[in-house]
């Protein structure tokens, strides 16, 4: 989230796309209700299904899964055509005025620079015209230049007429215009809208762009950086935000520094290719200019004394992967027989999918599989799952019992970036050990093996710092302290990443957490909350700066310089983010130099982390296009009405094709219905299959079937049905409902079927069922393909057939 949960109460209008907060984030949802109850805010929920969120929304729109770019694109077009955008903001706080290179183009669904053979773009042309003298981007503050971002954008989205939007999304024109009129109001300085999303947007081959299209709309309306505004991702597991911050995904180092690439020999090579470049004279480019300090401090945290100026602070110790190593790639490698073993901790690959049958095949190709978990999972049991021929499984499976999160202390980072320290609630059960102790133990043994047996390039292993009281049993408190980092000269904890150095005198395990654990103590433990609002929430905006700690630097709303106009006055005096009081910025922790006068001729532009210093309506940060464009899901019942010849994303990576495996995508002729998969309030993915009280609330797997379709097939609630895709099938019960229904897309009538994800062959339900949950894995249906940027699987849009059994 750019903002945070409590801040949603400050909104006038709430767009919910690709999220079902009432079911997936029920506690956070209280703030939506507060906005509705206390300030009469309107909630608009666009979802293929009428859900428990829709039930309390002011307006529910039945939208076709995978079509939100068209929805937001249509709103962008409406706002531009009717001049409803926030003019001062767009001119000064976005790159609307930047001039784009003349060779940038977009034709028939393809941006300039596309290569058919590599299915990828050369993005050179997606950049600005630069002034040779300064090297900075050229701008036209009148926004009239045909190659200005503003004009390009206007043309790009002019195709997204209400009729076009309707034909893509299935939302009738007049319903869409109703929404457009409401949204159009939100460009006024005294109005603010928030967009809330989650994996209903990310689980698509166009996931990245789906989100960007919302962000672009928010920039046009001047809602970025403002309380009650922003582009807000509701995160997943209680600590998935923390996982991401600490680089759980392969392409980053802690704090969203890029993973080094082959050929980068020195830190400078790395920074040159990774850091944002200053492209306007008033841009601070804070991230860019500090990139090297952040990296160096991380290296010092990792390699300590072994990281010296002479060895360029051990930059050569850091891996520089030559190829993608994301989720699906791992199983793709295993399918190719290129993997020996796998350690799964805190998740169950067999259920997660996509294409679970293929994933389970991949697991059975491994020599060994280690499952670190507190409970049996579909992965620890995959070799003896119903219908599995044990002799066909060569994998040796080890189960290492870990403590559950409730059996350890440490921090949870919520969607609002608050790092909240929690205590251990229960003592570890049985032989359970903490994950970090298991990993430390394994590491010590590997180190010992290197010591005795030598081996290729032992230095990164040998040099790694483990200065904990007991290196085999580090405490999470020690680790938190290390992550914050310290000044090696004074030995004091660092108070801000602004003071980090690139000369090896400071450390930071994750620079964005610097300032969370000071010499005065662990700020994540703070609990200055609603018991005393006067002290803890003086502005009444709900920042609660004394509650836990929020990265960066305890800032509650990111980009908050943009919450004030050029003079530093709040756009809306009733909802200030930060304001200039004549001598300093007050309110939230400013995302700006605390005492820099906005009237200073050298005052920085508002978005201090960007090279441009402003919000990017046009960006070369994505591999699939500088402007979000609607592409059909890989499995779609229709051709893209915008450009049938380039219907789906031209750059989505097709694993099976690349690996020469048979094609596993279905066509509408065999699989006539659209399916989407999702969560129910009553279960947490797969783990709650072990919780009897929750199993009682949703005891058996089911699929939600549109009433009209069910009638034509003679299916009634409670009947057993088979839902099949090109990849597999589920055999579960039917829940027939009018909450799902037909829609007209590209002139065709289509139905969407809903598939909850929670069941499998492990747990209370499966144990009590004669089939033992043999055909209960939702992901038996989903396609093995993902977003071109993040490679997030397309869990949310695929084709299926439906039969009564």
């Amino acid at each position, binding site marked *: 989230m750019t903002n945070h949960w409590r801040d949603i109460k400050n909104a006038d209008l709430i767009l919910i796309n690709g999220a079902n907060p009432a*079911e997936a984030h029920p506690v956070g*949802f209280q703030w939506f*209700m507060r906005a509705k109850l206390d300030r009469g805010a309107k909630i608009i929920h666009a979802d293929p299904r*009428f859900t428990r969120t*829709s*039930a*309390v929304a002011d*307006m529910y729109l039945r939208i076709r899964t995978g079509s939100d770019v068209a929805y937001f694109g249509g709103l962008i077009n409406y706002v531009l055509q009717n001049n409803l955008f926030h003019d001062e903001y767009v001119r000064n706080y976005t790159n609307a005025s930047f001039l784009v290179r003349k060779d940038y183009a977009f034709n028939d669904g393809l941006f300039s620079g596309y290569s058919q053979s590599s299915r990828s773009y050369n993005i050179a042309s997606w950049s600005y015209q630069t002034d040779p003298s300064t090297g900075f981007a050229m701008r036209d503050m009148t926004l009239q230049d045909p190659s200005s971002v503003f004009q390009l954008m206007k043309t790009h989205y002019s195709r997204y007429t209400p009729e076009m939007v309707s034909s893509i999304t299935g939302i009738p024109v007049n319903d869409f215009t109703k929404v457009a009129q409401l949204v159009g109001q939100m460009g006024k300085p005294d109005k603010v809208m928030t967009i809330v999303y989650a994996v209903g947007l990310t689980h698509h081959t166009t996931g990245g762009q789906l989100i960007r299209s919302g962000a672009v709309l928010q920039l046009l309306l001047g809602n970025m950086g403002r309380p009650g505004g922003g582009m807000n991702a509701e995160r997943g597991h209680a600590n998935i935000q923390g996982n991401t911050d600490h680089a759980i995904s392969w392409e980053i180092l802690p704090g969203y520094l890029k993973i080094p690439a082959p050929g980068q020999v020195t830190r400078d090579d790395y920074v040159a290719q990774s850091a944002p470049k200053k492209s306007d004279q008033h841009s601070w480019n804070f991230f860019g200019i500090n990139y090297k300090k952040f990296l160096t401090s991380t290296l010092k945290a990792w390699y300590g004394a072994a990281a010296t100026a002479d060895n360029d602070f051990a930059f050569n110790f850091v891996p520089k992967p030559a190829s993608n190593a994301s989720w699906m790639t791992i199983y793709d490698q295993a399918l190719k027989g290129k993997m020996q073993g796998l350690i799964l901790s805190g998740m169950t690959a067999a259920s997660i999918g996509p294409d679970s049958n293929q994933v389970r095949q991949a697991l059975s190709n491994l020599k060994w599989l280690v499952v670190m978990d507190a409970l049996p999972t579909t992965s620890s049991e995959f070799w003896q799952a119903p219908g599995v021929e044990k002799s066909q499984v060569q994998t040796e499976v080890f189960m290492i019992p870990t403590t559950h999160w409730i059996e350890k202390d440490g921090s949870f980072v919520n969607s609002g970036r608050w790092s909240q320290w929690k205590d251990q609630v229960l003592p570890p059960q049985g032989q359970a050990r903490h994950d970090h102790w298991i990993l430390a133990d394994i590491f010590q043994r590997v180190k010992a093996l290197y010591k005795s047996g030598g081996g290729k390039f032992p230095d990164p292993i040998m040099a790694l710092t483990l200065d904990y009281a007991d290196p085999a049993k580090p405490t999470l408190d020690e680790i938190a302290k290390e992550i914050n980092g310290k000044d090696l000269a004074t030995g004091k904890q660092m108070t801000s990443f602004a003071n980090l150095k690139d000369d090896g005198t400071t450390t930071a395990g994750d620079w964005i957490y610097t300032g969370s654990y000071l010499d005065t103590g662990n700020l994540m433990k703070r609990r200055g909350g609603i018991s005393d609002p006067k002290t803890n929430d003086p502005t009444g905006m709900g920042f609660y700066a004394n509650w836990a700690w929020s990265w960066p630097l305890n800032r509650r709303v990111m980009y908050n310089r943009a919450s004030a106009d050029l003079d530093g006055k709040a756009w809306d005096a009733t909802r200030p983010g930060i304001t200039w009081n004549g001598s300093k910025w007050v309110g939230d922790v400013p995302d700006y130099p605390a005492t820099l006068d906005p009237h200073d001729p050298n005052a920085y532009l508002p978005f201090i982390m960007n090279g441009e210093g402003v919000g990017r309506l046009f960006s070369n940060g994505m591999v699939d296009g500088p402007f979000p464009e609607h592409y059909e899901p890989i499995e779609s019942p229709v051709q893209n009405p915008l450009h049938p010849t380039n219907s789906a994303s031209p750059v989505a990576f097709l694993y099976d094709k690349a690996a020469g495996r048979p094609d596993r995508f279905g066509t509408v002729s065999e699989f006539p219905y659209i399916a989407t998969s999702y969560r129910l309030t009553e279960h947490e993915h797969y783990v709650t299959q072990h919780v009897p009280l929750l199993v009682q609330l949703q005891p058996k797997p089911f699929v939600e079937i549109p009433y009209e379709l069910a009638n034509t097939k003679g299916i009634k609630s409670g009947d057993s049905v088979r839902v099949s895709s090109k990849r597999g099938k589920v055999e579960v019960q039917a829940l027939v409902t009018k*909450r799902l229904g037909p829609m007209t897309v590209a002139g065709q009538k289509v139905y969407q079927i809903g598939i909850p994800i929670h069941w499998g062959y492990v747990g209370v339900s499966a144990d009590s069922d004669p089939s033992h949950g043999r055909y209960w894995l939702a992901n038996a249906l989903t396609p093995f393909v993902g977003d071109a940027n993040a490679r997030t699987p397309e869990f949310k849009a695929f084709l299926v057939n439906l039969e009564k059994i």
Partner: protein
Amino acid sequence: MATQIKAGESYGFFTDTSVCIGCKACEVACKEWNQLQGNEATFLADSFDNTGQLDAQNWRHVKFVEHVPDQSATAGNGTAWLMMSDVCKHCNQASCMEVCPTGAIIRTEFNTVFIQQDVCNGCRNCISACPYGVIGMNPQTGTAHKCTLCYDRLQGGLEPACAKACPTQSIQFGPLSELQQAADVRLATLHSQGVTQAQLYGRDETVYGGLNAFFLLMDTPETYGLPSAPNAKLPSRNNLGGYAGAVLTAALAVVGGLIAFRRRVTG
């Protein structure tokens, strides 16, 4: 809720169904606090409800009523897919208490209706009387069970578990007077927003002298399986008619008998 809980005050619930999101946290919190096992898991294929009813194992039950029109755009507003967390109403005139022959059902110092487990002998008269189908028998204990309004928690100064767990404040706990004011305000807001079908149930005396656990409904009471005010009558209403019928019959029967057995002179 920061209310300080005192004996002698009337406490209850204002359950605002217009903001209920059917998350069932109340059901689970109640089971956890009161250590109820719940019934055997069964898929009811009835919207998202698999609990089915209030009984000895379920003292909270979230009802789901689907009236969602099959159309592309709908105003949810709490009126299309009704969700209501049902519970013992802690009636001011409690049918269960009226008929209980053992005196097991009492009114507590918090003006709530409570079944004393050490007094109840399992006759089930209360079950036949409760117009809301709240009470259930526990075959293990042989006694009747229902919501205690967390008697134990109230005595310990804690708000009820269900209310504490409710994320949307659909369940509001507090002194009845405060709740009634809150409800009136909420109703006014909804009406002003044009949600005219919103109505309060049990807030005034029209239903069993007023319910300590009263509701804001988004449709008619019957839609939620609640008797409408004119139908909300105490069991004792039938004493008179029943006994009158019996007395009349008795009189005629006696006469009949006397005639049949009258002395006759016979040879």
